[in-house]
Each structure stands twice: as C-alpha cells, then as structure tokens.
C-alpha cells in the first residue's frame, strides 16, 4: 500500500509542478497575444480563446497536448504569413509551444522530464546560435553596433538618462544621426558623435566581450551542468542585465519561462523566482 500511496503522491507532486509551469506559460502567451501588433487579428483571437479556455477548464485543457499544438500551429502560421516581420521572441514562443505539445503527448510519468529536456536544449541552442551570430558579424565584433547604440541612447537608457549631461549628448547624437540619414544619397557623408561618457571605446569593447561571454557561458554551463544551480543563476543574471541594457521584456519573459521549464522540481525557490519574473516581464510591456 505504501508503494501505491507513494506513487499517487509523487504523481500529485508531478502534476503540481507541471501545472505551475503551464500556468506561467499561459500567462506569458496570453500577454504576448494581447500585446502583439504583428499577429493577424483572427489568429490573435483564436489563440486567446484557446488559452482562456485552458484557464477556465484547467483539468481538461491546460495539460492537453492539443491545446499547445493549436497554439504552435497558429504561431507557425503567423510566421509563414510574415516571415520577415516576426520578432525572434515570436519564434521562441513557437518553439516553446511545440515543446509543450510534444512533451504533453507523452505518458504522465515522463511529460515533465521531457519538457525539462526540451527547455534546456532550447536554451542551449538559443544561446549557442546567438553567440555564433555575433562572432560572425564584423559590425558587432568591431564595436560599431554597440558603440552606436551607447552613443545614441539605445542601450542602458535607464542608467545613462539619470545623468543629464550624458542624456543631452545622446539626444544630440541621435539628431546628428537622423540628419545624416536624411542627406540625399549622392554624397554619403559622415558626422562625428560625441562620447556621452569617459572611456567610451573601452566601455564599448567591454560590452562586446561581456555579451559574448555571458551567452557562451550559459550555453556551456547548461551543456556541462544541466542540473546545477550555476546555469540558472547565469540565466537570471542575463535576464536582469538585459532588462537594464535594453528593455526586451517579452524576450526576457520567454527566457525565464524556458528556465522554469528546465529547472528541477526540487529547486522550489528557483522555480518561484523564474515564475514570478516570467509573469512580471510578460505583463510589463502591457503597461509600458
């Protein structure tokens, strides 16, 4: 009887963990669907209806693979309709919904473990590809792109705008950039942007190295130590840094959601942090 009781309670715990993951997923997907201006209205309404149905009929729809397959197909259709207009976090949400659908189509004992493996490998692939992309871009490696963003206030705006002098220089630089772009194409032209803070070149190149390092680090630690706390702490540092560097809130919420899917059930605090951050970053763009 103890064995049966143990199985029942472990199944109940398994469902509790899975329901936690799925509830966060519903919140992240719903916020994105309500916020996105690139999804076709009919697709938007269809996904919203499915997800709201999963909220109302939790026992039947939340963990049904068909629910997430419908979401994945709809998101995939949106990509097929406008492949060059869809943001990278839309692609990531499509993979997340596919991962949910395939994982939930398995037996009740293995579906959570399957979702965990999917999420870890999705994060490994995401960070690996992102690192490779940057290594292949001379504009990134030479500091041209990061430097431009820092000089015009595209990066670190919440911090830099706290310094009025820096904010003023960045506004001037944005004006110069726009003036250059408006010149007729006959003369290509150039302007010199003023550095908004001392040690501009050093800071720029430090950003280049730091961005490459954190993405490669997350990829490696997830590959080598998937069950340790280290890769998850690195993901949380990445999410926090990205929130300050550039407010890509939806992307951060999807990364936190995948981190939650990929974390072991016994890491209760970590899972709570991922869940809270995932929902907060998903809700935040609705207010911004």
């Amino acid at each position, binding site marked *: 009887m103890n064995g049966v009781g143990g199985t029942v309670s472990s199944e109940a715990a398994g469902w509790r963990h899975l329901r936690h993951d799925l509830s966060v997923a519903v919140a992240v997907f719903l916020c994105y669907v309500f916020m996105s201006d690139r999804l076709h209205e009919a697709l938007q309404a269809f996904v919203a209806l499915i997800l709201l149905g999963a909220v109302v009929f939790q026992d039947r729809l939340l963990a049904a693979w068909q629910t997430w397959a419908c979401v994945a197909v709809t998101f995939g259709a949106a*990509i097929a309709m406008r*492949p*060059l207009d*869809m943001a*990278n976090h839309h*692609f*990531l949400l499509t*993979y997340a919904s*596919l991962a949910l659908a*395939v*994982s939930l*189509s*398995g037996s009740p004992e*293995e579906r959570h473990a*399957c979702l965990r*493996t*999917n999420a870890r*490998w*999705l994060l490994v*692939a*995401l960070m690996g*590809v*992102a690192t*490779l*992309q*940057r290594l*292949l*871009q001379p*504009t*990134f490696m*030479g*500091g*041209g*792109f*990061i*430097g*431009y963003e820092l*000089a015009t206030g595209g990066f670190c705006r919440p911090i830099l705008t706290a310094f009025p002098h820096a904010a003023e220089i960045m506004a001037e630089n944005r004006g*110069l*950039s726009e003036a*250059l*772009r*408006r010149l*007729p*194409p*006959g003369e*290509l*032209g*150039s*302007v*010199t*942007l*003023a*550095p908004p803070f001392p040690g*501009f*070149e050093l800071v*720029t*190149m430090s950003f280049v190295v730091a*961005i490459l390092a954190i993405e490669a680090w997350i990829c490696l630690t997830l590959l080598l130590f998937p069950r340790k706390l280290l890769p998850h702490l690195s993901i949380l540092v990445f999410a926090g840094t990205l929130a300050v560097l*550039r407010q890509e809130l939806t992307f951060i919420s999807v990364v936190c959601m995948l981190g939650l899917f990929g974390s072991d059930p016994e890491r209760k605090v970590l899972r709570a942090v991922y869940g809270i951050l995932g929902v907060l970053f998903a809700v935040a763009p609705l207010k911004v």
Partner: protein
Amino acid sequence: MGTSPIRSFRRYAVPLLLLLVASFQIHAVHRRGLSSWRGGGFGMYGSFSPNLNDLWWTDLESGETRRYVKEEDEATEDAHRAALRPFLTYVNEKALREYHASLPAAERERVRLEVLRLDFDPRTGVLSRKRMIEAGPGRRP
C-alpha cells in the same frame, strides 16, 4: 527508461528545429543579404537594425528623391513603398535589380534605387553611411 525513437523525438526534435531554422537564417544573412535581426536566427543586436537602413529612390531627370524607411507611417505610402520595403530587410542586389528591371521602361531609364546603411567607428566616433546595394542608371563611385 529506454531510449525509443519516439522518446528521443519528443525530447530533441524542437531544439533541432530551432537549429535548423537558425542555420538557414545564418546562410541567408551571409549569402543573400538578410538582416541578422530577422528570420528567427536570434542574431538581433548583432548588427545595425534594418530600421536604420534607408532606401533612396532618385529620379535622375528631375532630381527628385524619396527616402523609404522601414517603419514609415503607412498613411504616407505611395505606389512603390510596399514593393520596396522588403529590400530594407533583405538587402539583396540581384533582387533589387530584378525589381528595377520590372519597372515601366520610361521609369526604368531615369530611376535609380539604392540602399544605404550606417557604419560607426567607436575609436574615432565617426558615423558614416555605406551604399550596400544599388540598381538603375548612373552607378556611383
């Protein structure tokens, strides 16, 4: 806990799909001029955004110029904009020349199209423009 093909498929097919799409996207970026920001390759913040590219339409006879940018108000859309907008993301000279060749003959002989992008040197602070692709008469040096 064996490893059946279905079990492996469930666990690894989706990450492999991500890698497959990203591989095609990386190929398109480096061989066909796609912006690294687009197409699901997770290359955002690796290069200048396509929103910073400008497509210039120049009438060489009248000297009239029009600038097409990625996020332009659709109310100001003219006949060319919808067709030209993709070239800001997909900076492909062959495709731009094909589009130019498809223009009516009278227009084709006097209209020049070119896509310019920004370039920044963090050492000197110099922001300049580069001509990425062009089509039509009057090739510039």
